[in-house]
């Protein structure tokens, strides 16, 4: 009889990954809804980044981004398309963080204050925050997103992968029953 010992490392990794997925999902659900329910406020905040100078793209970003974040948050909480969603969020978070950093540098230069004293509403859905705290938060969210790509923590997922990768056959192995 083959008795298997529980692999505690793997269990801990899976638990951590499920928690990371729920935290990431809850954060995006909250920030997405807080912006989506007040789109004009978000539009005004988005304007400060001077990304685009015509109405249509600015309005489209302000209209769609909060709900897109809400959608991604829901997917992560439910455990659907986890790695695809995590990659999407990571690809969004990195440029957003760069933009927020640049904006903070500009404010620091304009107000002539220490960098970590810069406090503004970055349009991130969490109101006015100190920049160093915001950057740390974003760094953690990026780390969580990257970690979800590892494929651990498939427990409590409705459908972890929407697209199954092609499988290739490896050497047969014996299983004793």
């Amino acid at each position: 009889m083959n008795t298997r010992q529980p692999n505690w490392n793997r269990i801990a990794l899976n638990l951590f990954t499920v928690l990371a997925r729920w935290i990431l999902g809850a954060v995006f659900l909250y920030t997405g809804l807080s912006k989506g329910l007040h789109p004009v406020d978000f539009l005004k905040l988005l304007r400060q980044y001077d990304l685009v100078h015509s109405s249509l793209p600015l309005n489209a970003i302000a209209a769609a981004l909060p709900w897109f974040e809400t959608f991604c948050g829901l997917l992560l909480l439910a455990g659907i398309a986890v790695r695809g969603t995590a990659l999407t969020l990571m690809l969004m978070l990195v440029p957003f963080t760069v933009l927020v950093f640049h904006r903070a540098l500009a404010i620091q230069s304009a107000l002539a204050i220490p960098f970590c004293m810069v406090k503004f509403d970055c349009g991130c859905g969490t109101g006015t925050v100190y920049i160093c705290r915001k950057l740390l938060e974003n760094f953690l969210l990026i780390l969580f997103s990257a970690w979800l790509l590892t494929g651990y923590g498939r427990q409590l997922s409705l459908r972890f992968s929407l697209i199954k990768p092609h499988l290739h056959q490896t050497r047969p192995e014996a299983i004793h029953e």
Partner: protein
Amino acid sequence: MEAKSIATTTPDRPAVIKGILREAALVVVIGSAFALAANEISPRGLALTRNYFPAGTSRPLPRPSPVSASHNASVTNFMATDSGQILAAELKEKGLQLIDCNRAAQLFQDPRFQQKQVVFIDARDEQRYQEGHIPGAYEFDPYRPEKYFDAVLPVCRAAEQVVVYCNGGDCDDSETAAVLLRDIGIANQKLLVFGGGIVEWTTNNLPVETGGRNSGNLRNPGK
């Protein structure tokens, strides 16, 4: 005990990466469709083709002290700050005029105010308006103008002076509202932007009305 031989299958790394990329693309496509549909359904959704910032999409950076004081409610004379002077110059370029709290208070006490020859326009959203506005001011959220045109346009056309205000300080919704009113035919000579806004008004203990227009619920009524 029975031994059984089965073939295990494992995906190779490029296939996994390709699968994640395809899944991400699917999330982007479905998520974008969801987001646009949600914006369309939401009663607060944005109109994609509307220009919400007729005064310009760019926003200047804050400036060093004393402008930084405009972030808090202790400011008592917005026009004396650098922000006030910059705003005055910007408004002048647009054919509009910036006024200070003393001038706004004078217009509020002017007998013409009772005859609707002087009107006040509150350019903040409904929630902030309900929380407190200059007594008798008309609500006019420049980001939802169609909701207010019927009430606001006739009084603005009939008035000799139209005072537009928002929160004050860094808020530029009063400028947006004034430009919007100018663009739909209100003569710019009679449009006055009260830069200090409701923050400066309340700091000076001037009366504030809560609830709807002419609700009668006043704070500091004796002033």
